[in-house]
């Protein structure tokens, strides 16, 4: 059952990533087309809490999806069946992502 739940989480995060990834690309394009300087972008993300919130969720979703996928690959190709390193990898990725969101807040 654990495996199935993790599988579901991976599928759900995949769906979220699809939507958020497209939104992220659109934001990137809009910012570079404007064009906005790094300082101008940061001024906007500081002013509106939506941006750090969006990127915090985006980064956590990506971290979860990546950690689950790498876990399955490591199980099947390397025979790593333990759970500790997968949780550790997830924690590192989430920390990096949240740190980035914190910086633009």
């Amino acid at each position, binding site marked *: *059952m*654990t*495996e*199935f739940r993790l599988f579901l989480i991976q599928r759900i995060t995949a769906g979220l990533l699809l939507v958020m990834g497209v939104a992220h690309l659109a934001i990137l394009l809009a910012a570079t087309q404007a064009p906005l300087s790094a300082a101008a972008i940061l001024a906007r993300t500081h002013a509106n809490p939506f941006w750090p919130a969006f990127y915090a969720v985006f980064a956590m979703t990506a971290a979860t999806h990546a950690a689950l996928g790498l876990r399955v690959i490591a199980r*099947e190709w390397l025979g790593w069946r333990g759970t500790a390193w997968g949780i550790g990898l997830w924690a590192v990725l989430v920390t990096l992502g949240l740190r980035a969101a914190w910086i633009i807040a």
Partner: protein
Amino acid sequence: MSGPDTALPDTALVVDLWRGDAGGGGLVRYRVPVDPGQTILDVLTWVQRHAEPGLAYRFACRVGMCGSCAVMVNGVPRWACRTRAIPVARQGRLEIRPLRHFPVIRDLVVDFEAFFARWRRALGRFAPASPPPDALAVIAPDASDRQLVDAAIECIGCGICLAACDSVGANPDYLGPAALNRAWAAVNDRRDDTMGHLRAAARDGGVHACHAQGSCRRFCPVGRDPAGAIVGLKRRLLVAALKGRL
């Protein structure tokens, strides 16, 4: 070798047969006379009758119904009795090995115990709701659920899909295509209490271990679609999980 029936004609197939047992073994080469239309099973029978009486291999029906004759032929899992030798030979050579992912008993005979244990773990059988309804279920042959059952149920249990599946090789816990295909037939049976199959398919090593490579569908000798069955189970499981029924 002597006598008219053992004389090699000008053209002979070069057949490398795996011989050995659970402890190990290797390829042994035989030269088998070409006979137009001969099957892989004919080739094996020729070797046993004329060259190696001790050769162990399995068959029963010889017409593609019993599912007992599957072997690896030049790296591909095939039913020996319905596979013509010449079209699958490579430059006149055949390499015949026991089915992949199955423990060897002797020569080309493999142990199916773990294969059927997977069916049991997947609850790959009819599991009716209890208590049974008073009236017999009337299911029209053209009803859509009956057609899904038909598509899945005609499996001959040959083990070729399991041999073809790379996910089985990568994850020994995985239930595999044949067992899940049988569970899918039961899930579509109106008289069945489907939840047992769904719970079995959600356990560790269940449907989520399938990476949808589709080798089971590609190599199934009777044209079943275990990959489609697994997708169907995944979909039903998702719905059941969202409804909190798992």
